[in-house]
């Protein structure tokens, strides 16, 4: 555990010193700034506040706000971030990290788990930072603390973890950032969409349902938001555990060629 913790801390340093992080944070800062600057301090009679786009926002239950958060979280956290940091994961399967960490009292499992934990920790820090900044801003504007923003964001976190693990698994499995990116994009835009197909074929429905528990339920995110919030969390969690275990198993048999 000491080794895993140490590797996670080391890798977190590596993430924070990465140039990709600066670009990524800049994009997030711009989006959050646009969003926050769009919020007007003008309170409507029934307690709603209004954005410059004319959407009414109240306690983060409005469709507008959800779409906006989805845009930030899904596009940036699920697509741009994993792709931007893919080379960090790629380093894991080249000798660079093996030279530094392995051959000593550190195992391959320690190295992979430590590195994934570093990324999970980073996601947590980033998500909570955005939530904190937004909450503070709303508190200043409206005078109320919006707890629902936190609970809304929490549902995404496991999905980020699971999606990032899927990207890592693709890279570890294919030894290539290019092929892994292609597979990841295909998954996000096409395969994950299958999970929400309404079909009358019971067998197919069961198969898709099973897979939706094993792979990140990206396409269901917005749909299930409205219906049952717990489904996403459970599916995200099961897929995270499944992908995490598969990644570790594959990585334990990995060869460091270069």
């Amino acid at each position, binding site marked *: 555990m000491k080794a895993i913790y140490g590797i996670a801390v080391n890798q977190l340093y590596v993430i924070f010193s990465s140039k990709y992080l600066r670009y990524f944070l800049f994009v997030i800062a711009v989006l959050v700034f646009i969003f926050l600057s769009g919020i007007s301090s003008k309170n409507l009679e029934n307690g709603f506040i209004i954005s410059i786009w004319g959407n009414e926002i109240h306690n983060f239950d409005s469709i507008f706000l959800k779409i906006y958060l989805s845009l930030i979280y899904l596009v940036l956290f699920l697509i741009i971030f994993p792709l931007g940091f893919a080379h960090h994961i790629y380093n894991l399967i080249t000798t*660079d990290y093996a030279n530094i960490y392995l051959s000593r009292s550190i195992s391959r499992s320690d190295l992979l788990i430590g590195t994934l934990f570093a990324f999970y920790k980073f996601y947590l820090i980033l998500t909570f930072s955005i939530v904190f900044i937004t909450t503070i801003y709303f508190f200043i504007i409206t005078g109320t603390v919006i707890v629902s923003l936190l609970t809304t964001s929490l549902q995404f976190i496991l999905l980020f973890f699971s999606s990032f693990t899927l990207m890592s698994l693709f890279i570890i499995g294919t030894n290539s950032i290019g092929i892994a990116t292609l597979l990841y994009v295909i998954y996000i835009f096409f395969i994950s969409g299958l999970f929400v197909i309404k079909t009358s074929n019971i067998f197919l429905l069961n198969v898709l349902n099973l897979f939706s528990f094993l792979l990140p339920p990206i396409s269901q995110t917005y749909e299930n938001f409205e219906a049952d919030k717990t489904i996403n969390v459970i599916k995200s969690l099961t897929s995270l555990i499944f992908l995490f275990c598969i990644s570790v198993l594959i990585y334990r048999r990995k060869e460091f060629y270069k």
Partner: protein
Amino acid sequence: MVKNNFIVSVESVKKVYKNNNNLITALDDINLRIKKGEVFALIGPNGSGKTSLIKLLLNFIYPTRGTIFIENNSVYNRVSRKNLGYVPEETKYPFNTNVISFLKRMSKINGFESISQNKYILDLLKKLNLYENQNSICNFSKGMKKRLSIAYSLLINPKILLLDEPTDGLDPVERKVIISIIKEFKENNGTVFLCSHILTEVEQLCDRFAIIQKGRIIYEGRKEEFNTKGFIVTFINYNSETLINNFDPKYQIQYDGIEGKAEVTDENELSTLIALLSHYKIVVKEIKSNNVSLESIYVKYLKENK
């Protein structure tokens, strides 16, 4: 499990890489045994399989066939790898930190956190002339990275050091520092597995050596075989041939009926042989020095196995 007295045993190891649809045999039927406290050098041309063998010892890659034992434990066993220090040919350090922080952090990860360990780190850095360098290690020059690799490999007090071209690309001063560190490690009963192109360095360090070519060990020898100050004596004999046949076989005489050649390993043997030849009234035609260097052995076996 095979139990033996060797700290490293490589048993019938074969390694085949798959490159697209081609199979490339990097190592074929490798058998090596290294004793505790020994410096074993593996020399060979580029692409002969030296780094592949080191990676197999580190368990970075897996053998297609055969087994490797370190202290009688299979290399798959995590315990066996705890005693390995490794200096790679080239390493990137993606950490934006100075050398002391890096080594302290890595000590902690490897479970070596103590005041004495901190003192050990500082001593190591002083020896390797890295103590006063406060730059980020990701900006280090090649030589500094190499010295850092040496420091890092010694951090966990390993029993075995695996060195892949440890002085490649270094200036003579840096090279000298690293050689002295390796010698010191050996004096403390450490075992060294060394891969190097620099044969003068191998001559200075190794107890035994092996020449590898196209994935096969073509020769194994000891340090006594090189740096010998021998002589070749050419003589002419007009007497009976049986006289020559009675000479000690250690002279390795080659005789064609009149002219012959004898080999001696030092000055004492030379004076004995000359006294013997003059005793039998055999004419000494020429005395040539016959120094054997590691390079001459290396070139000879590579040519023979081309």
